[in-house]
């Protein structure tokens, strides 16, 4: 603090509290809506800001599916959350494993066409899935991977950012460690497993948080490659709740939305330190 300015300081707090309130407001409304009954929401103009007493039955409907009193049927969100979890875990862990391996090869070995390999991984940065949806869909369909975990995850697993991150990190690891390992007769993989991997723990944790959120929040890609309800991730399920019915049952939609954002939000808040590190490291 440069000078004491109690008025300005108060002003800063006021702006921040207002900011936090505005940012949190949609979440609060979603929670309120998920605790009211459909009749209450339909009759409200506008929505009451006081939580209702129907939380239990709304979340039961959202999680396990079934029919509400008006006869609308809902698909259960629980299996969809399982699909999301598996997808996000496979994408995050898969990205980390293949990026660790290729960064290890690029940094610790000399082999022909190394430059080309590095360049090819680098270029994928410029080809996000959104710009090549049509042909990528065709490839996945030809390989018979529609409606499967393989189709949901493998096309998203290649990662230029993760490879760069590990490469940068490996370059800072002292050469003496390799010399010592070689003197002791350790094989390359032994060195990788016993020395490099333990040293990379923080980078791995940071990347995991970022990639888990990336995987969990995928929408366009699952929209294309899944047609079978058993393979819908939960974010896709929400969209179907508001598009499918003639009348949107907002209480269940909001309960599902809360369920869909809970796991990644928890990961961000509980692993905040790794999350911030991951964001800064992957982007710079």
């Amino acid at each position, binding site marked *: 603090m*440069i000078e004491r300015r109690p008025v300005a300081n108060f002003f*800063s*707090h006021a702006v*921040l509290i207002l*900011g936090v309130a505005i*940012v*949190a407001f*949609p979440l609060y*409304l*979603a929670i309120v*809506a998920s605790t009211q009954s459909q009749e209450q929401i*339909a009759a409200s103009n*506008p929505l009451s800001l006081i939580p209702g007493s129907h939380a239990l039955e709304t979340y039961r409907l959202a999680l396990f599916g079934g029919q509400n009193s008006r006869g609308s049927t809902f698909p259960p969100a629980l299996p969809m959350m399982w699909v999301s979890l598996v997808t996000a875990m496979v994408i995050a862990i898969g990205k980390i*494993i293949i*990026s660790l391996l*290729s960064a290890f*090869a690029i940094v*610790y*070995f000399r*082999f022909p066409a190394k430059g080309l390999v590095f360049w*090819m991984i680098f*270029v994928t940065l*410029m*080809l*996000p899935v*959104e*710009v*090549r*949806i*049509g*042909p990528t869909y*065709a*490839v996945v369909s030809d*390989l018979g991977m529609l409606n499967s975990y393989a189709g949901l995850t*493998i096309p998203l697993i*290649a990662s230029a950012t993760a490879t760069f991150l590990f490469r940068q990190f490996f370059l800072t690891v002292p*050469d003496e460690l*390799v*010399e010592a390992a070689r003197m002791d007769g350790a094989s*390359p993989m032994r*060195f990788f497993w016993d020395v490099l991997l333990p040293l990379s723990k923080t980078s791995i944790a940071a990347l995991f948080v970022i990639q888990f*959120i990336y995987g969990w929040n995928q*929408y*366009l890609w699952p929209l294309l490659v899944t047609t079978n309800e058993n393979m819908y991730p939960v*974010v*896709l399920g*929400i*969209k179907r709740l*508001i598009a499918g019915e003639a009348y949107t049952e*907002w209480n269940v*939609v909001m309960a599902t*939305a809360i369920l*869909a*954002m809970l796991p*990644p939000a928890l990961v*961000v*808040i509980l692993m905040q330190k790794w999350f*911030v590190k991951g964001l*800064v490291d992957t*982007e710079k």
Partner: protein
Amino acid sequence: MEKRVLFKSAWLPWVLVAPQMLIVLVFFFWPASQAVYQSVLTEDAFGTSTEFVGLLNFERLWNDSTYLESFKTTALFSVLVAGCGLAIALLLAVMANDVIRAAGTYKTLLIWPYAVAPVVAGVLWVFMFSSPMGVISFALQSVGVEWNHLLNSTHAMTLIVVAAVWKQISYNFLFFLAGLQSIPKSLLEAAAIDGASPARRFWTIVFPLLSPTTFFLLVINVIYAFFDTFGIVDAATQGGPGKDTAILVYKVYFDGFKAMDIGGSAAQSVVLMVIVVALTVLQFRFIEKKVNY
């Protein structure tokens, strides 16, 4: 940049890069080249025969008023998202940087929207703007604004901009706060001793020193608005009313998967690839510059 000490093996490095290479070749290079290839072909209505047409698909795009409209929509959308998102996040970051002791708490309270999927953000905001139960549409109505994002394209655009900005504030905030915290306090103290007011200190010292962060965020926000907002548009407006909020990515999806215009969609993909390449090059040139600096 190379290690002095390397391992020697003729086959191991190939095995190590094989999984990444395989995925990159099958799911990136092959589809990307297919997009380029398809963009110069046209398929008849039954999908039975294809014909080489050169740049006809691109010519068609160029003459297609809805495509040019979509370009304009995307440009407007990304300018609004980047502009509003950066301004609000900068304001909050400057304030948080002022209240050092509580900055961590505010950070925790502001970062969670990063974890919300774009489509969920779209659903949350469309709920607040829908009638009759929407809280914001009700508030607007009481001040005389008849809100209807299903019919009014300005309203629809506002809706997706608000949802997109809301989701991106946390990201911008984190980077601005980190940038602010790395500005040497001594500079600001010296200026304060010379009698510079807080506002003057901000505009002559803080803002210029923050410009690398701002520029970096500008590029990231434009990329975000171009590609990561598909879910928001799909949940909130489905590109409507008409095609007034159909951003480029939405149009690629719609033309390729709903209207089944493979050649046209592929040509659009190629245009998008050119845009990403340009943005990425811009971003990397900036990073290079910063390293020198």
